[in-house]
């Protein structure tokens, strides 16, 4: 038995390194015409880890991944974990400046990225690059096949596996610390309640650098299932074509995924009986969308789920058989998780009463990186405070009512109002500004900014152009409103909820 094969299941890397021998020739990953078996994936991971070791990666090192969904992403992720280091997956569309902020915050060792990513995000080569990847996986594969294998390190279950950065309330990104034990607990729970086996397969369009996409990756590898990576959701008809060709047993998406497939493709005219299930998370989906999915795939389980990055991914689910009778519910806690609707003093509320949804379980994060105050606030009393207001019915089913926090949730991105406000405030003549989410058919919410300035100085186009020059596409405001004032509390805090109520009528469709 090799060192790798003796790794205990307390190590996330063991999902790849210690798979059962019977899975060796099974396909783990597919993309376009390429595929990788579990044995090949393991070989590539160990070789990539050897290169990272030479580059200085050690147990506890923090390594940024700037790679789109691909075989190379999976290999790099597990190579980092194999060395007992912590991976920090980021959107490869980030600017070099944004990546530098994260690297500085977490004292990261450096990045793994492709040549073409570097040309786009970091042409001046300011980011420390630990391992430049070729643009083509086949070129990287040749490199791994001619390399020696690393010796895996066995981290403790409470060692950090992932740091997933999300928006913070002040605009400064927060690093959610997820341990090997957190991620393994959530993975095992999802595999259990979804009854996943090695007979399962999926086509994934969700980014692995988000907790939802990451959970799809981990659960399929834990079950010995196959993941087909599909990055062309920009062309939704192509995704329908691929789903019909690959015929996976499962498919997962956020509300926008299903809305786009239903409204911009011939999804309704196709046969989906090969799908055992579809999963939806990433915000509430419209009842009309759920009902249309139900009509077009009567034999497929439609599983509504709720979760947070701070919970590794998943907290609750609503089984398909309850979809009709509990429409709008996020269901009940998944195995291994306790959920409680807490009143103002932390006590559990009575059925029907609204309180903050709190969670406890082995999947809950260790805290926020380098932010003891934020950690203490989020994990007070031993419970994760989700920031979502909820109620429980007489039978224990949970319903999200509203969000306590002022984050904007658009296209599954969690966006801090502060990030947008800071950019607009840089412009001269702006007296006050507040960014809010307003309902949007496609993205759940879209961004509106309320600007206070003299009427003759208000220039929506100039504000739009300034935002375009400073913010990524998903953070650009759709609506720019001239308002007389931003309502504030006595202590000066912005009352976002008043603005949200005032401007919820802006609702439209992005399609």
């Amino acid at each position, binding site marked *: 038995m090799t060192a790798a094969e003796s790794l205990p299941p307390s190590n996330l890397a063991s999902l790849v390194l210690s798979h059962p021998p019977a899975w060796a020739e099974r396909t783990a990953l597919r993309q376009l015409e390429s595929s990788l078996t579990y044995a090949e994936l393991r070989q590539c991971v160990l070789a990539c880890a050897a290169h990272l070791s030479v580059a200085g990666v050690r147990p506890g090192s923090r390594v940024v991944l700037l790679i*789109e969904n691909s075989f190379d992403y999976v290999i790099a992720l597990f190579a980092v974990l194999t060395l007992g280091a912590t991976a920090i997956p980021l959107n*490869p*569309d980030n600017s070099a400046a944004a990546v530098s902020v994260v690297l500085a915050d977490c004292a990261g060792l450096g990045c793994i990225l492709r040549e*073409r*990513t570097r*040309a*786009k995000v970091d042409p001046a080569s300011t980011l420390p690059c630990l391992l430049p990847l070729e643009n083509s996986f086949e070129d990287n594969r040749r490199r791994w096949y001619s390399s020696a294998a690393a010796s895996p390190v066995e981290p403790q279950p409470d060692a950090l596996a992932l740091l997933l950065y999300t928006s913070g309330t002040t605009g400064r990104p927060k690093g959610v610390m997820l341990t090997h034990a957190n991620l393994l607990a959530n993975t095992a729970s999802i595999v259990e309640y979804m009854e996943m086996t090695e007979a399962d397969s999926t086509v994934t369009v969700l980014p692995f650098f988000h907790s939802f996409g990451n959970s799809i990756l981990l659960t399929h590898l834990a079950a010995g299932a196959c993941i087909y990576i599909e*990055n*062309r*959701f*920009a*062309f*939704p*008809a*192509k995704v329908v074509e691929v789903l019909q060709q690959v015929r996976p047993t499962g498919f997962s998406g956020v509300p*926008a995924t299903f809305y*786009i497939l239903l*409204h*911009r*493709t*011939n999804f309704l005219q196709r046969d989906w009986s090969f799908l055992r299930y579809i999963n939806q998370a990433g915000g509430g989906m419209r009842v009309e969308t759920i009902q249309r999915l139900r009509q077009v795939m009567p034999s497929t389980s439609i599983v509504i789920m709720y979760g947070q990055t701070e919970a590794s991914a998943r907290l609750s689910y609503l089984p398909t058989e309850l979809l009709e009778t509990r429409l709008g519910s996020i269901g009940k806690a998944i195995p291994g998780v306790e959920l409680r609707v807490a009143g103002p003093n932390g006590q559990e509320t009575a059925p029907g009463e609204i309180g903050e949804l709190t969670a406890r379980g082995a999947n809950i994060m260790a805290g926020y990186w380098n932010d003891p105050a934020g950690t203490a606030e989020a994990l007070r009393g031993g419970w994760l405070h989700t920031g979502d207001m909820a109620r429980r019915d007489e039978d224990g089913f949970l319903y999200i009512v509203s969000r306590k926090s002022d984050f904007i949730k658009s*296209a599954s991105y969690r966006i801090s109002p502060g990030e947008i406000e800071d950019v607009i405030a840089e412009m001269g003549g702006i007296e006050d500004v507040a960014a809010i989410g307003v309902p949007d058919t*496609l993205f759940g919410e879209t961004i509106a900014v309320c600007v206070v300035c003299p009427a003759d100085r208000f220039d929506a186009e100039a504000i739009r152009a300034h935002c*375009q*020059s400073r913010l990524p*596409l*998903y953070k650009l405001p759709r609506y720019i409103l001239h308002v007389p004032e931003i309502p504030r509390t006595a202590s000066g805090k912005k009352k976002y909820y008043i603005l949200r109520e005032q401007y919820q009528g802006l609702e439209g469709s*992005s*399609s």
Partner: protein
Amino acid sequence: MSLRNSIVKLVQDTLCRGKALPVGDSESLLDAGVIDSLGMMELVKAIDKHFHITVEDEELSPDNLDSIDALTAYLKSKGVNE
């Protein structure tokens, strides 16, 4: 301005914050990370508005939209000759 140059400017303004495109005319915008699903929606809106045409749902394919060359050929097929 030629049609090709108009398209390049539109893609730069819509998806690259006005910066130069990091790919050649025949290369995939998707592979280069220039567009994603959100970006595609924005690009389609911008094309509709700028060229006064409607990109139909069934035309949302890589063959029509995934490179400067593809966009140029597609818009010409729609009668655009700017």
